[in-house]
């Protein structure tokens, strides 16, 4: 995108904007940082001032664009239909193209992520290197202060040597004539939480034929958010081919952000050329929570040591009513005490904000963290429940070490898995 096309995009998107401030009232960034630049309205007007030549500092503006969760609440709530989220993503791409994304982001998102070989090697290096990093962080606790993006990295689960996708067979035959379910695992399930994927396989395999396509990879949302749509497209095409080949009836993802990417962003990203294929897959994609809500008998609840659930609804699941309500329904069936935090509150874990603007991200999570602590009230058997792996990473970094952070699936089925694997 060049300066002229950005200019016309900004003009087009902003034409219906009345400046009414509705976007401000529901913006998670503004709630944590009540200043004009926090809100969508502020960012939109900054972009307008930029294309009109009234703001010249591109780097400052690029950093302002980083202070956005890309959650889309502004776009959903705008009475005048201003497509703020799409524009912010395009602006990130514009500034990335002009070299303002930062070298690390460029390396990670544009070079490393789309190359499956490189990515595999990087993960292996991470597997070996993580203990070293953790030791460094423990030794020099000031390191996390100087680099806030490193906060809580030592609390992350250890990377696995072989990913969930690699260690699973490609197909597990179910009962004769059973529907075919493909699992799209996503990076975190693959490399950090393979047990989540295994729990899912275990629950499904008695009723369905389960397929775990080998050539699947990252869903591409980090690249798309980071301003590298081309890299996202490369990833998405590979996933599309993998998912088409397995001829599944349903594609399940245990991460709300992957679900969002496959079900709602893929078509626009790949363009008309792949319309039929993308629509075919998008229609089959379902978040695990929604699948659980619609197929409760497949996931009978096992006794759990957890007594209290604090439910965090991911931004990317908030519009899926059945999926979003499932954890509460589950808690009721299991007789567990539960609470939601303020409706629709964001944890600050999305859109690479924890890396790009770690302080903003941590401030967004401050209120949810307080709510959690109040609900937990020092009880040892309280878990945080979320069905998005971006949120999982954020909560893992910020909650006290040792706090159980579970996918709803792990709330009802986790005990059985240990015996089966």
């Amino acid at each position, binding site marked *: 995108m060049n300066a002229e096309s950005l200019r016309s995009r900004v003009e087009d998107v902003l*034409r*219906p904007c*009345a*400046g*009414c*401030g*509705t976007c*401000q*009232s*529901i913006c998670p960034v503004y709630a944590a940082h*009540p*200043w*004009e*630049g926090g809100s969508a309205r*502020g960012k939109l*007007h*900054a972009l307008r*001032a930029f294309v009109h030549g*009234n*703001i*010249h*500092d591109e780097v*400052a*503006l690029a950093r*302002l664009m980083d202070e956005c969760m890309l959650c889309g609440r502004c776009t959903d709530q705008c*009475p*005048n*239909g201003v497509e703020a989220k799409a524009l912010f993503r395009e602006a990130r791409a514009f500034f990335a193209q002009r070299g303002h994304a930062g070298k690390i982001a460029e390396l990670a998102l544009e070079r490393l992520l789309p190359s499956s070989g490189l990515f595999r090697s990087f993960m292996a290096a991470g597997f070996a290197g993580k203990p070293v990093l953790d030791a460094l962080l423990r030794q020099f606790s000031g390191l996390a202060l100087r680099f806030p993006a490193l906060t809580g990295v030592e609390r992350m689960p250890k990377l696995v040597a072989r990913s969930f996708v690699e260690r699973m067979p490609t197909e597990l035959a179910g009962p004769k004539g059973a529907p075919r379910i493909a699992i799209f695992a996503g990076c975190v399930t693959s490399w950090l939480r393979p047990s989540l994927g295994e729990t899912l396989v275990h629950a499904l395999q008695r009723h369905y034929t389960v397929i775990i396509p080998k050539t699947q990879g990252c869903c591409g949302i980090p690249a798309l958010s980071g301003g590298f749509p081309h890299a996202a497209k490369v990833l998405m095409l590979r996933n599309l081919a993998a998912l088409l080949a397995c001829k599944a009836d349903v594609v399940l993802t245990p991460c709300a952000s992957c679900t969002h990417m496959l079900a709602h962003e893929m078509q626009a990203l790949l363009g008309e050329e792949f319309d039929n294929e993308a629509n075919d897959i998008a229609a089959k994609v379902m978040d695990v929570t929604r699948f659980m809500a619609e197929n409760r008998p497949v996931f009978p609840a096992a006794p759990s040591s957890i007594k209290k659930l604090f439910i965090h609804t991911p931004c990317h699941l908030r519009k899926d009513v059945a999926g979003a309500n499932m954890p509460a329904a589950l808690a009721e069936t299991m007789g567990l005490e539960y609470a939601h935090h303020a409706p629709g509150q964001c944890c600050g874990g999305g859109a690479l904000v924890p890396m790009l603007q770690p302080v903003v991200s941590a401030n967004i999570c401050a209120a949810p963290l307080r709510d959690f602590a109040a609900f937990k009230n020092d009880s040892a058997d309280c878990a945080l429940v979320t069905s998005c792996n971006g949120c999982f990473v954020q909560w893992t970094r910020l909650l006290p070490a040792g706090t159980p952070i579970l996918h709803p699936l792990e709330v009802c089925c986790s005990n059985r898995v240990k015996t089966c694997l």
Partner: protein
Amino acid sequence: MDAAGSEHCRFSETDKALYAYDASGDSRTPPDLVIRAVDTAQISRVLACCSKLGVPVTPRGAATGLSGGCLPVRGGVVLDMAGMNRILDLHAADMVAVVQPGVVNRALQNAAAAHGLFFPPDPASLDSSTLGGNLAENAGGPKAVKYGVTRDYVLGLTAVLADGRVFRTGGRTIKNVAGYDLTSLLVGSEGTLAVIVEAVLRLAPLPESQAALNAFFPSTYTAAKAVQKVLHSGVRPVALEFLDTATLAAIAEHSGLHIPQNAKAMVLVAVDGSPESTVRHTALLETLLREAEAVDISRADSPAACEQAWKVRRAVGPSVRKLAPACIAEDIVVPLGSIADMVEKIQHLAKGSGFPICCYGHAGDGNLHVNLMYDNTKPEDCKAAWSTAEQVFAAALQMNGSISGEHGIGSVKLPYLAMQVDPVTLELMQKIRQTLDPAGILNPSKGIPAANAAEQSA
């Protein structure tokens, strides 16, 4: 900056550009410095310092105002109050809330609802506008027909004078006649007299039930007449909204909502109270509206149905905006007996001007929004639109109305204030302003014309 605390100051090019606009669509000189207000002591230091140096200070809440009240006209400091957003006390027994100015109206509504209470002033922007802004502009809303406007719910204030001294007005009681009513003076003063840092607000019991009727009429005149009949029916509606032909046509075209084909105007009547009274009142009003020639009436009894009924009214803004690139959004108000005449007059002016004019609003209190839709890229259209706006003002004044019911004068309507306020009153207002702010730093060029400007024009 020492007075403010450097960590609360922003002055980059981007920061300044972000504080040069609001919802009025007007855009002014960016400020030289944005200061994030954190407490009374800091505001006091900042104002004392700015008074000494003669630097203008423009207080700003959520910038949802429609009259440019929070736009810096001569640069200087923008005092961003949005961060002072704590509800300091919500006292159910006293039925009052003590709030900081940055609290968003909706946040107070939510907190009050937990105690079975609510804050009646409900400007359309209540999801995003701050109470400080509501107070500064004396905001109204649809519920004003039954509950009144912001000023009616302010019991006391703590404010900072331009020289930095802190003072309190009013108190925590409903009745209070000790001394002059400075609370009422500050409410609606558009940040020109002092900076409000704390407000004691009165709350009302949350009604048990609500209901709404959307009545469609064959002409604007019959609809405007129906408004008067409702006002005289003995039922006090909580909202009585009116939409004219051009507005309904815009909604039918752009919103996707169903509007009956033969409808040329709409009246929305909402009632609240006990379940028994809302049932009785809606039945009574339905009969009355049919007698007033309504061609179609839809009735909403549940909260969900009411939400649906209000959709037509809420679709006005977005639908009307699609008619033209720009809009002059006026909020004239006329005495209750003149509503039908004013609506007729506006239609007449619309025919003469050649612009689409959408007229709608809170007819129950005489407050009509007159939106002149024009193309702001054509200089001749801008001139003609404002000249039509001036004729609308003149018509409202001729009927003993006012040029602004709830948006305020701000900077946008400043040139027209002298049409309404006589020179002696204007001089009194200027004297009051000089007494409270001798250095003239608080929100200059807003609300009322500067004393020297009046002399020049005289």
